[in-house]
């Protein structure tokens, strides 16, 4: 359609080089034979073996996935509710406080969120562990979910819900059989976002995790502080691979849906 000028091509090339070269180096050197990460000494997959045999990593990974799964699920339920409450209800007592509490965690520095939650858990005498990390992650992730779901609800034709009520649904049936199926893609996107945020989080987890539960980012952070290690490179590569595959699959699925929608439009025009 439009041809790109030389300037634009150079910008894109440099920009994406900046974004991707560090990742590429990391991936390439994860296959390095040498213990010295910056000197190439031949191809090897031995560091992957090390990672897989490292019990501490595996334990931490398992904790991380469990935390991410439960907190994402809880955050999705709470965030979807909050989005509906914000978008569907008019004035109610404490609305301003409610919307403030939903938006504040999005811009709150993680150190403050982490610190305040830790102080709460100590004040109420809750032992720090998997449960406290789940509570903490749910709290900040639900706000992201609520933003994602809200943005879908903006374009949601409210007469669909009214039609369901008109045809005999109770408000909850209308939500379950009409609203939820239609906003499902946004809810799923919200869950994925919450899941990744939880997987990724170091700061809040560090505050709220106890000696009994360490997440993968905490583990990585403590070993990275001592410097670069080929084992961490290998672990990072595994994570990058999983994320990339996940995002690619998600985008292919959504692209298929767009293509199907186009086909439908053609069909509708002919009908």
């Amino acid at each position, binding site marked *: 359609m439009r041809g790109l000028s030389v300037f634009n091509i150079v910008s894109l090339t440099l920009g994406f080089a900046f974004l991707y070269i560090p990742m590429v180096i990391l991936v390439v050197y994860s296959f390095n034979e040498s213990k010295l990460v910056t000197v190439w000494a031949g191809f090897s997959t031995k560091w992957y073996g090390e990672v897989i045999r490292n019990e501490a990593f595996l334990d931490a990974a398992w904790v991380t996935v469990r935390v991410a799964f439960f907190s994402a699920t809880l955050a999705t339920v709470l965030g979807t509710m909050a989005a509906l409450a914000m978008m569907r209800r008019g004035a109610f007592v404490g609305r301003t406080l409610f919307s403030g509490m939903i938006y504040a965690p999005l811009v709150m520095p993680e150190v403050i969120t982490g610190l305040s939650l830790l102080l709460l858990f100590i004040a109420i005498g809750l032992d720090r562990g998997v449960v406290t990390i789940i509570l903490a992650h749910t709290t900040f992730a639900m706000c992201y979910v609520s933003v994602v779901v809200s943005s879908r609800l903006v374009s949601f*034709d409210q*007469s669909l819900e*009214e*039609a369901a009520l*008109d045809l*005999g649904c109770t408000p909850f049936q209308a939500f379950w059989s009409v609203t939820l199926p239609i906003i499902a893609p946004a809810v799923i996107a919200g869950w994925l976002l919450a899941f990744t945020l939880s997987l990724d989080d170091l700061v809040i987890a560090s505050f709220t995790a106890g000696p009994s539960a360490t997440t993968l980012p905490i583990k990585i952070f403590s070993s990275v502080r001592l410097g670069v290690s080929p084992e961490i490179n290998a672990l990072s590569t595994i994570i990058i691979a999983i994320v990339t595959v996940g995002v690619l699959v998600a985008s292919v699925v959504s692209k298929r849906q767009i293509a199907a929608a186009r086909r*439908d*439009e053609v069909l*509708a025009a002919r*009908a």
Partner: protein
Amino acid sequence: MVNELGFAPWDDPGAAPLIRIERVSKRFGDFAAIDDLTLDIYPREFFALLGPSGCGKTTLMRMLAGFEAPSAGGLVIDGQDMAGVAPNKRAVNMMFQSYALFPHLSVWDNIAFGLKRDRMAKPAIADRVDEMLKLVQLDGFARRKPHQISGGQRQRVALARSLAKAPKLLLLDEPLGALDKKLREETQFELMEIQEQTGTTFVIVTHDQEEAMTVASRVAVMEAGRLVQVDTPDRIYEQPNSVYVADFIGDVNLIEGRVGALGDTVRLDWAEGRSLTGQAGGALTPGAAATLVIRPEKIAIARDEPTEANRVRGKILDIGYLGNLSTYHVALPEGPVVKCSVTNRSRLSRRDFTWDDEVWVSWSDTAGLVLGA
């Protein structure tokens, strides 16, 4: 005039209304969307609520469906007081302006949606859905999703879905607004046929006066939350009770003046030493300000002085050619411009009048209506 079916329960003192709206008001803050409105609608009626946007017609309909509660007054449907009855508990269904078809469900499942809420047996649901699909001529489209069918088909699915539960009352919110003109006209007749076949009471909200006139047994013209006139389409057109209604429905000439002599007809003094006559539309007092309302198609145009009761001389200012009709704008020396429309029986080349011609326009003494200000 009685309508062609002889169907006029509103004239029968013994007939029981299906809907009684009694002194209903609806306020949103300081704004009164509905202002102390009383109205009866009878079974099997095709009733149109007509008015400009913001006149309260949609609010009134949403109160019937149960989406809004009246601020004051009572609403009775089929003998049951509707106060506090949720939308899902009313034997009333609504066809939405946007159709509100569930995008994730097929045409079939959309129509079956309300039936499933009633816990109807599966075979009974299937029979009813098929019946509805036949009614709206969509037999072959049951498995399609709403976005896989055309706009006109969507409109029919929405109609079938809202009729599937055999409601006592069907509300239609601008049901044809999204269709193009030709399709809209066809669909109007389909709607009337379906209404007759099913015997359901229809209440339609529209801002399109032609649509209201075509489909309805009675039309309620609304303005600012009040009913201005409730009557059959022909009476709304021929016997408007106010200048507002006359002006809202169709094209009209309005000539302002003062009431002169009262008799079988009314004399209106509209300019120094000049008067016109028309029928009295309501009570009038001599000397009071009034308006003569006369439809353009009731006015004749001629070169020579006619003999009719009302005749004025003027100059042709403009000619609007519409194909079947031509509209002449005739400027009177006293100021007003009179619109007069003439059927084009002959070819354009043989037209009698052209711009700046001096002509006479005339109408009979019963063609116009004198309405108090």
